């Protein structure tokens, strides 16, 4: 375990915690961006260059911008009067802590049987492109269809409604 891993893990976890805990929604969006950046750096640390740069492009470039747009369009930048946490916050916290406890227990129990170190895999973008249009061409087409449908659907859902005769 290198010190770089600990720094990146702390950055990611700190960003995630800040995103969940901060009061102001715009601050939450910025903290989410920090968490996404930490995850992209963790991907690069895992020798997954393509996934790391895809993460930067998709999450920091698109999803974070979308979240900021949604916050500003819904006037979420104003602080609500009756707190930011829901009435059942304690139950949610207990459920999340329980899930983490079960996951951590399972990881610490089971990972010992896996080999400790493995050679750095040499995977170029060329290999990934060949795999995408070779073995994985059907999922690629389905994802393209899904993205088209989702884009059209999002536009139709968020499009301004026509004025109704009543209400």
């Amino acid at each position, binding site marked *: 375990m290198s010190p770089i891993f600990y720094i990146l893990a702390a950055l990611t976890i700190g960003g*995630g915690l800040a995103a969940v805990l901060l009061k102001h929604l715009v601050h939450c969006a910025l903290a989410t961006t920090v968490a996404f950046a930490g995850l992209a750096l963790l991907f690069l640390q895992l020798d997954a260059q*393509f*996934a790391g740069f895809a*993460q930067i492009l998709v999450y920091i470039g698109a999803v974070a911008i979308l979240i900021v747009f949604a916050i500003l369009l819904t*006037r979420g930048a104003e602080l609500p009067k009756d707190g930011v946490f829901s009435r059942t916050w304690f139950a949610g916290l207990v459920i999340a802590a329980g899930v983490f406890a079960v996951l951590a227990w399972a990881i610490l129990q089971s990972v010992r049987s896996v080999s400790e170190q493995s050679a750095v895999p040499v995977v170029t973008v060329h290999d990934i492109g060949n795999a995408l249009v070779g073995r994985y061409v059907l999922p690629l087409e389905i994802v393209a269809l899904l993205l088209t449908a989702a884009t059209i659907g999002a536009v139709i859902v968020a499009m301004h409604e026509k004025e109704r005769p009543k209400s």
Partner: protein
Amino acid sequence: MTSPLAGYLLVAALLFAIGLAGALVRRNAILVLIGIELMLNAANLNLIAFWRFGPHPEALTGMMFAIFSIAVAAAEAAVGLGLVIAIHRHTDTTELDKINRMKG
């Protein structure tokens, strides 16, 4: 003591728990979506970590799964935020406690 794989898996588990807590605890619908995004990202970190430390990284299975997962998450974010904007236009709030009817 812990192997590298266990370290990455623990970080992913902690991030998943944080995202779950965010989705369950906050009132604002946009924060719930942020929590869901954090959970999806934790799953991606698991996929990449298993790809890296698995027996056959040259087969690219985990990497491809992570890439397709990122694409699906982007579509989900677009539709989810569009729904939040539509609900805000309809009911003039994004607080989930106040959205208590499905009929407009």
